[in-house]
């Protein structure tokens, strides 16, 4: 069927790539505006960001970490989340077989730019059920002011 076993017909991998692109387009994942620092899909930890009137809330889906070893830094309106997740699968040997190793292991770093009204002095972070919640208060908006004419 193929001229050689070691030579795939040239279009095979290009077809997979095109299929993935079409699926992403149908799901609305491609082409939607995203942050310039968002990185590739599937980056660890996954982030969800939302705002309330009082604060900016960031949820980082980072299961199985020691909260003391997660570094959250805010510098010049840029929030950096970094740390390391050790591999938990023992090395395969004669008595141990590994069938799946899909969970993330290694060092990670995610960077987010914060809106201008973020007050980096009051950042609070809590870790529960493997989700790190970072809450950054927003500065009170400048109140409209009337200047009395004298």
């Amino acid at each position, binding site marked *: 069927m193929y001229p050689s076993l070691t030579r795939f017909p040239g279009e095979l991998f290009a077809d997979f790539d095109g299929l993935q692109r079409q699926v992403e387009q149908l799901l609305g994942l491609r082409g939607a505006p995203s*942050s310039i620092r968002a990185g590739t899909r599937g980056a660890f*930890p996954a982030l*969800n960001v*939302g705002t309330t009137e009082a604060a900016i809330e960031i*949820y980082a889906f980072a*299961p*199985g970490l020691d909260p003391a070893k997660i570094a959250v830094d805010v510098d010049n309106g840029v929030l950096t989340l970094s740390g390391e997740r050790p591999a938990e699968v023992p090395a395969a040997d004669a008595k*141990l077989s590994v069938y799946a190793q899909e969970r993330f292991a290694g060092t990670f770093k995610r960077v987010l730019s914060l809106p201008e009204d973020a007050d980096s002095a009051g950042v609070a972070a809590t*870790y529960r059920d*493997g989700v790190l919640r970072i809450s950054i208060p927003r500065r009170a908006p400048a109140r409209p002011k009337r200047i009395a004419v004298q």
Partner: protein
Amino acid sequence: MNMNTQDLKRDPRAATASATPLVPPVDIFEDSEGIVLRADMPGVAKENLSIDVDGETLTVAGTVTLGEASGLQPVYSEIRVADYRRSFVLGRDLDAGRIEATLRDGVLTLRVPKTEQARPRRIEVKAG
């Protein structure tokens, strides 16, 4: 390729809200005692987790609760589905009745022991 314009206009979040649950990434390994399975299910509390064995099929499922502040407006979401689900077929050498499960910091660990007959053993050769 023909695309339905209505599909394209649909909010992606709405499109997946009731759709396919997330497939949690897993690590699976086996030693002489049995199989260890770890699954990442961040945001799932113990009371929102279910582990079911039906025949030889093991299904783990969970629902994410984030305890969001009221009036939260989503700005950017990488996790758009609030459910996890994944199934595995156990072999007959595994003892589904004695599965041990622990959930800690969003990581589910299951230990599935082998049945007594399936454990490796050495057969003594008797002289005679």
